[in-house]
């Protein structure tokens, strides 16, 4: 499409949305950067208590709970995205078999995605309850459940959170990858079949390379969202038992809005922001060629 060159008009059109985003995001972020170098605890005083240099940042790294939430976040986000991708690809391939009634199943599969993550948290808190459905099913197949319940045990609660996220977002991959499979020219597959290519060869040499951009983009969105995981934790385990299932976001929320340790929480926020910027940039550098973006 021919694009028209104007000098000022485009900026005039973009200005209102940039302005409002500056006010609601950029200003609060600058505010938090400024006060991350101050001591400010709302429990002791409503006002900031003066500059302390990098003390907040240093204290963050000395804090065992922070380290734990940092490790938890990585232990959750990387495996979750990989598992969701593998399962989603499997389901997409299953749909691609064009079974009768497949369309109906496909329409239904969207349902987990549509649920508010907070509500998903409530749903699985119910399912993982001591006498809940999942505990019952597990006991039927002979899997021992901890006495304190699935959500009461540090290890199983962690797995339960991962399970919940995988349940909700695997359909996301499945639906997008199915659309990706559909966009591959059918002649390509047929030609490969005539040449005697096997199912796995077609998948590896035709389908996956063809969907490279789709896969990487989807994985990147999903990674960013699981990295910031908060809702499910809040509704399902409240970061517990103890601090076992705290993620970076939950820990940040807890320090800032439960302990009211404002300056300290701002330091956590900026460490989080830097971490995600680094990861996304590394991801882009190693996976996309510049001309693809």
């Amino acid at each position, binding site marked *: 499409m021919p*694009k*028209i060159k*104007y000098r000022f*008009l*485009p900026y005039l*059109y973009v200005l*209102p*949305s*940039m302005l*409002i*985003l500056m006010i*609601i995001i950029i*200003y*609060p*972020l600058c505010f*938090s950067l400024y*006060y991350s170098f101050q001591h400010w605890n709302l429990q002791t005083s409503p006002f900031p208590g003066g500059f302390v240099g990098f003390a907040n940042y240093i204290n963050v790294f000395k804090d065992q709970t922070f380290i734990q939430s940092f490790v938890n976040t990585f232990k959750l986000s990387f495996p979750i995205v990989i598992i969701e991708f593998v399962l989603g690809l499997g389901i997409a391939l*299953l749909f691609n078999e064009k*079974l009768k009634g497949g369309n109906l199943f496909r329409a*239904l*599969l*969207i*349902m*987990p995605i*549509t*649920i*508010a*993550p*907070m509500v998903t948290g*409530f*749903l*699985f808190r119910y*399912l993982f309850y001591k*006498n*809940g459905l999942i505990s*019952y099913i597990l006991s039927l197949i002979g899997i021992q459940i901890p006495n304190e319940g699935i959500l009461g045990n540090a290890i199983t609660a962690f797995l339960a959170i991962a399970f919940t996220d995988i*349940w909700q977002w695997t*359909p996301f991959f499945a*639906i*997008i990858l199915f*659309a990706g499979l559909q966009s591959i020219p059918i002649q390509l*597959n*047929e030609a490969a079949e005539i040449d005697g290519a096997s199912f796995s060869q077609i998948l590896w040499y035709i389908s996956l390379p063809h969907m490279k951009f*789709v896969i990487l*983009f*989807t994985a990147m*969105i999903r990674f*960013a969202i699981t990295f910031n995981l*908060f*809702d499910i934790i*809040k509704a399902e385990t409240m970061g517990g038992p103890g601090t076992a299932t705290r993620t970076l976001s939950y820990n*940040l*929320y807890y320090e*800032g*809005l439960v302990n009211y340790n404002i300056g300290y*929480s*701002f330091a956590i*926020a900026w460490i989080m*922001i830097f971490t*995600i910027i680094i990861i996304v940039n590394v991801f882009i550098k190693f996976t996309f060629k510049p001309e693809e973006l």
Partner: protein
Amino acid sequence: MKKRSLFIQFLLYVLLVIVMLFFIGPIVWFFMLSIRPALTNRTIPPTVIFKPTFEYFYYCFINPGVSLKYLISSLIVSFGSSLLSLPFSILSSYAISRFEFKGKNFITLFYLSLFFGPPVAYLIPYFLIVSRIGLAGTYLSMILIYQTFTIPFSILIMKGFFDEVPVEIEEAAMIDGTDRLGALIRVVIPISLPGIIVSSLFAFVFSWNNAVFPLVLSGYTTKPLPIGTFNFFATTGVAWNNIAVTSVITMLPPMIIFMVLGKYIVRGLTFGAIK
């Protein structure tokens, strides 16, 4: 594609049914919780057959209607935020679709990057600022911060729709004596109305489902549904049936909207990057 043998087809069907049970089963079980008598909540083995009751629905949404005010809050905040984003995103999206200008790529990347940021990180300073100017607990405070995702989302989605409007139609309108803004309002917006509606519906769902911002920003009278649901986790006991009823009402509008959106879902879920 090759025809698979009958046995393989049968196996694939079994697999499909297992997949469906896994993903839809929990939702069905939760819907059942909303209409099951509380006595059957936690039996071992779980009670599958029971006489459905609507008393929890009646209690939550009719008399005394404890969840009704949450529903109203949810509606106000979601409608408000998707409507507020429209003028901003239409203008911006149109500019990105039609014009070449310095910094365009940077601006597009800025919008996209907003989806990767941790919401809690800007929620806390935002909350402090909003409290300072006396807006804490208001609908406005929530509607404004929802713009951090409704505006960039709508811009990216609408761009795809504006790209599809032939530029000649606009030029014809401009020859007929209207200026660019006039052409946008009288020609481009009506033609791309379906796209604008699609993007507003997505913006509505994202606002409706957001629970991080209102958890902190909403006041006693302005809690939306997911936040109000926390009230049923009392120290005296968890009112699971009421939680389920309120959650089901929270789940329904997005489910219906997603069913309607059909072919636009992939586009919406990937911020317009994949069509």
